[in-house]
């Protein structure tokens, strides 16, 4: 029987890794991720988890050790935050391109300048195109579950890709929530031991990471793309099985809230979805037909599901918790991909975006209410006045928010 614990997102990640029987852990301290490595170092030191613990001399070394461990056939686990994600960058493409299905926990954090420890998604969003599987959890429970699920998905022989298992710094990583922890036997049933088809092995020497000729480049890249093309099916299967074995109820790709009759939806990833749900509840009480859609994966981006399920809304507002300076829509990243996903539909919703939750800022109910007015107008007119709104700056009239508040 599952036992219920009260875990922060950091502890949930560490206990998820323990349940996944990780064999090599690499670390370098940076908050908020530090909470994960501290928990794991204790588990290893106390003999509760039989794994090697390697403290790197920086994230670059840390990511390199992880790749090496995975190449030799170990289930490898690492993690970082903010500028640590940036410093590890060189190693991400070799890890994904070399098809090492290790996992990197992310408790996100703003990049410099200036020094800021708060949550923001820009750190790992900047690494989104290297081939990692990537998705945000909304709660410590989902962090725990994703840790196990992501390994299963990444280690599928049709996939073999590393994973960024992400959670919002502090909002999820440092706020405890209930986590029902399944029996180890259930996890073992779901997640078989890692089996690299060509591990580094002195008895059967193999060559990893050879230098290639230019005409071999595309041939290798298309395999990485092919693994991503396989992902939606594998994710669907692995999430379904997880739900069955553990008694959970995760949507594979899109988590929807009050969308059946919604005229407009907030579209966002991660922990701020909790606030969005409350905002939707309040708006509904006022008779406003609002809803919420939360992608559980950013890579692969759920384009098919969005085309299939989001065309019916009149307006979509992406809540951008990361920046894309100079990008096509001049604000964040999600709006680009949401708009692109809807492009082939005959009837397309109006799509706009709100910059919020940057540098650790709390995305407040007020911000959602303000933005709801923008979206309600867009739903009515079918037009957007601006591609991007900055919460607290250019969304006009805080009076409006007060009017909607209870």
């Amino acid at each position, binding site marked *: 029987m599952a036992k219920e614990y009260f875990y922060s997102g950091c502890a949930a990640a560490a206990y998820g890794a323990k349940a996944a029987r990780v064999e090599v852990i690499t*670390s370098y*301290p940076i*908050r908020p991720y*530090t909470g994960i490595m501290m928990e794991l170092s204790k588990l290893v*030191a106390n003999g509760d988890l039989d794994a090697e613990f390697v*403290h790197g001399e*920086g994230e670059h070394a840390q990511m390199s050790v992880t790749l090496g461990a995975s190449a030799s056939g170990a289930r490898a686990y690492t993690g970082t935050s903010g500028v640590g994600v940036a410093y590890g960058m060189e190693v991400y493409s070799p890890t994904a391109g070399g098809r090492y299905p290790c996992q990197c926990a992310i408790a996100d954090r703003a990049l410099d300048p200036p*020094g800021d420890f708060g949550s923001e998604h820009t750190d790992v969003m900047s690494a989104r195109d290297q081939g990692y599987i990537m998705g945000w959890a909304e709660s410590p429970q989902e962090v725990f579950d994703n840790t196990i699920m992501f390994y299963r998905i990444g280690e599928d022989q049709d996939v073999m890709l590393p994973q960024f298992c992400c959670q919002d710094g502090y909002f999820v990583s440092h706020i405890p929530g209930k986590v029902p922890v399944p029996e180890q036997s259930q996890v073992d049933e779901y997640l078989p031991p890692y089996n690299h088809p060509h591990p580094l092995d002195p008895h059967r020497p193999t060559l990893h990471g050879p230098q290639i000729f230019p005409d071999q480049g595309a041939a290798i890249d298309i395999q990485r793309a092919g693994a991503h093309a396989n992902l939606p099916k594998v994710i669907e299967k692995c999430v379904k099985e997880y739900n069955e074995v553990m008694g959970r109820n995760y949507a594979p790709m899109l988590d929807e809230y009050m969308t059946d009759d919604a005229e407009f939806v907030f579209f966002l990833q991660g922990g701020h979805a909790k606030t969005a749900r409350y905002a939707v509840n309040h708006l509904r009480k006022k008779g406003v037909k609002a809803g919420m859609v939360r992608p559980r994966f950013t890579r692969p981006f759920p384009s098919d599901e969005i085309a299939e399920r989001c065309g019916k809304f009149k307006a979509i507002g992406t809540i951008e918790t990361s920046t894309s300076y100079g990008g096509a829509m001049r604000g964040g990243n999600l709006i680009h991909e949401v708009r692109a996903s809807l492009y082939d539909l005959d009837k397309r919703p109006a799509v706009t975006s709100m910059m919020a939750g940057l540098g650790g800022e709390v995305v407040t109910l007020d911000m959602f209410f303000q933005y709801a007015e923008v979206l309600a107008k867009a739903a009515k007119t079918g037009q957007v006045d601006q591609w991007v709104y900055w919460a607290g700056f250019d969304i006009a009239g805080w009076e409006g928010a007060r009017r909607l508040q209870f």
Partner: protein
Amino acid sequence: MAFDYARYIRPGKLPHIWCPGCAHGIVMKAILRAIDRAGLDKDRTVVVSGIGCASRMPGYVDFNTLHTTHGRALGFATGVKMADPGLSVLVVAGDGDALAIGGNHFIHACRRNIDITLVVFNNSIYGMTGGQFSPATPHGMLASTTPYGNPDYAFDVVQLAMGAGATFVSRSTAYHVLPLEKQIAEGIGHKGFAVIDALCTCPTTFGRRNKLGSGAEMLLWFKDHTIGLKASENLPPEKREGKILTGVFRKEVKPEYCEEYGKIIEKVRPARGGRE
């Protein structure tokens, strides 16, 4: 007359972040007195740091200051010095910042012998992130990541700097403030790369875990466990056992990097038809 620290402090940036008992402030004050003693022009002095508790120091002091990324202060400082070799450039770094994530820059700055003064605030631990062991944590000591003792061996900053080619290398402690100040001033005056290993204390994340007592008691430990380089020469080996040596280990005249670089430009520019 009492030293006028106010002349060098940015009052608007106080209070500082350092914990009670932390010795980073003692080292900072020694640096300020050393700068004063060396007679540097405030407006022609640049203090550069990476990230960490020690690296917060440039925020508090009234020079040209540059707070950069973790481990990379020496890289940024090299850029500053190369662009304007007339500037006096100091780098302050924690032991993690200087030796772990920034270890590569450390050895290369030593090798080049660029005219920069580096003060390592060596508190044996990653202070800012909560007491994980660093490359300066002694073998066997407890850290938040080594609850049963550190299996690694620590770098000896002095040996490392000398091996890598630094031309001024010294060590003092936050207890021995006068020699510390003197060494830093000497390092500033030295033409070439100067490394000062400033042993200091982190009672919060290192002292408490290892039961080393209060900040003051940790400072007294330095008094009892160090001997001056000169004095040690006349002592029998058993009296030197377990003691840390302090003093100036190397002071060597060797061509400085920016000057050597300038010489090449002078030599090649006319030959290539450039301005003289």
